[in-house]
């Protein structure tokens, strides 16, 4: 059953220079218990999607969608108060830049305790205070903080970025959410901690059956964990499918470029140029028409000024007029949207 179902999510940012379409007709469906990777360069609108799901938008954003459902709840028709309750209970979010997302004037332990919902509590009311503290310590141990006393008594600016991130993760999983949105959870960490956190997310998924939307710019990290992945470029979804489909049967040139951007150094000749896509991500003010990859795409042709339709082959979605590995598609039923 689909836990999160988004159809045609469009986010526009209203600026004095005009309206910018930061995310254009984004689709994603997460089934219960899966780990989905959302990959794209910085500025491709990954974090915007996450924030739109959480409903923490800014005043100058206009968020529209044909469908935005969490399980059997239609998020679009909720009042802000109802929506906040649903978010508080069902969705946990690990923010990018953890230190800025912790209140600088409050000790980390108190903030963590605040995130623990009361309705998990069973027992007498006088045990409540102690219970919260014990829960907070247990959560810290769970995310791999050994020295819980120091962390709980520190203000966020006294903690390293990695520790802040761990506190953030502890806060996100405190309410035992059904869906966990992890926005670049391992970016600020050294590799050892990074593996710890990824293992923790994996454990959460396997043991508590938490659905995870893992957002990252790093295809490698995502592929360690995610069963399915979605690739975004410039606010548009370019390809989506299982890990095997995306990695071994790539259809979109951008995904291909991302994969080749992780070179295997045993095979790269001495002083050879590394594989990169020419040019850079266009600014939001100067988006190309049609396929947004157009100007950088090695395979671009005249048709690319028309936005390619989303094609679906055996659950593998991509939007390209001239897909790679096109011979694999021959004889298969292709559904166009």
């Amino acid at each position: 059953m689909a836990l999160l179902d988004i159809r045609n999510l469009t986010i526009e940012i209203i600026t004095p220079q005009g309206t910018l379409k930061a995310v254009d007709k984004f689709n994603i469906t997460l089934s219960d218990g899966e780990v989905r990777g959302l990959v794209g360069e910085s500025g491709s609108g990954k974090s915007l999607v996450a924030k739109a799901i959480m409903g923490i938008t800014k005043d100058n954003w206009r968020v529209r969608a044909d469908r935005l459902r969490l399980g059997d709840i239609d998020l679009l028709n909720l009042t802000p108060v109802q929506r906040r309750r649903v978010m508080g209970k069902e969705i946990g979010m690990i923010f990018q830049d953890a230190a800025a997302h912790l209140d600088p004037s409050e000790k980390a332990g108190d903030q963590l305790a605040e995130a623990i919902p009361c309705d998990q509590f069973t027992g007498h009311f006088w045990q409540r205070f102690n219970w919260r503290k014990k829960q907070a310590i247990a959560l810290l141990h769970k995310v791999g903080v050994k020295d819980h006393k120091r962390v709980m008594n520190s203000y966020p600016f006294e903690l390293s970025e990695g520790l802040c991130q761990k506190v953030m993760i502890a806060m996100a999983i405190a309410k035992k959410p059904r869906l966990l949105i992890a926005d670049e959870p391992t970016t600020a960490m050294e590799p050892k901690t990074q593996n710890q956190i990824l293992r923790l997310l994996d454990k959460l998924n396997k043991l508590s059956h938490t659905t995870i939307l893992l957002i990252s710019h790093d295809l490698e990290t995502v592929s360690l964990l995610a069963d399915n992945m979605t690739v975004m470029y410039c606010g548009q979804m370019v390809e989506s499918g299982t890990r095997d489909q995306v990695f071994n049967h790539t259809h979109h040139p951008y995904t291909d470029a991302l994969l080749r951007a992780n070179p295997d150094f045993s095979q790269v000749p001495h002083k050879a140029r590394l594989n990169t896509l020419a040019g850079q991500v266009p600014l939001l003010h100067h988006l190309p028409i049609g396929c947004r990859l157009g100007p950088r795409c090695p395979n671009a042709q005249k048709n690319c000024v028309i936005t390619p339709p989303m094609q679906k082959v055996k659950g593998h979605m991509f939007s390209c007029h001239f897909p790679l590995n096109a011979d694999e598609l021959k004889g298969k039923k292709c559904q166009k949207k």
Partner: protein
Amino acid sequence: MFFYIIRRINLLVITVTALTVIGFFLRSRVAGDLALEGNLFSNYFDYLMAIVQGDLGVTSGTGQPVLDEILIVFPATLELCFSAFILSIAVGVPIGTIAGMQRGSSLDSTIMGISLFIFSIPVFWLASLVMMYFALNWNWLPVTGRLNLLYEIDSVTGFMLIDTLISDNPHSQDAFYDALKHLLLPTIVLATVPTTEVIRQMRNHVSDVMKQKYIKAAASKGLSKTEIIMRHVLRNAIPNMIPHLGLQFSTVLTTAMVTEAVFSWPGIGRWLINSIYQQDHAAIQGGMLTVAIFVVTANVLTEILTVVINPIRRKELYAQS
């Protein structure tokens, strides 16, 4: 932390010393007798010693020691200032928070427009206006003074509200209410300007805090809007506002002098104005020194308070020192 406080107190001592130098020259210029004997430095030293011992000279008006008179009139001014400050915070913080939460809305511009209007009203005019309506026309509140002459209350602390409460006069309860009634109008008049300042500061700081990422993170925890305001917005906005309030203190003291003159409040402002009329130089110099020392001390104390209650400022402190 300890060194920071030492540094602040050091600053306080230096400022106060500079003030005594000014006071000394004021005095030696007008009262020629001091300048005649000995050299400048030994004279200044004598003057300093006298001040430390509490000897500010004798008023030419009543022949009383200046310090005794100041100890009677200054608490009256302080009582007025403190009550005005409490009123302006009690009114300004909620209104400023509401305006800051909805910055740019029509409610915000209404609040800011009204507060600008109130800010621009001259205090002496407002004072006579409220006096005319509330005291003279409608007879709700007493016109001038600090306490009805019927009550005889001994001055212990100099603060009338406290004195009436601890007095063993059988009517001390009534005297307390009477003192409260007398305090009300001057307090309202004096509180107008600092209230608009508190509203403005509060609005700016609240709207700054609202843009921060940790407020979004708090919203994603499922906290309600009230919980977010009480637990995250105010505790980050108010500490930033305290130093601005400390700077307001000297403005309030100045305004208090005008207010006292209109309401015949027996405070240091009225006393100083009378001394100026009577060309009582010892009193002017003593009063000036007291007010100045008080303002400087209040500023230093608010700065120390800011650092004590605000962990972010402490962080800045450690990074610098």
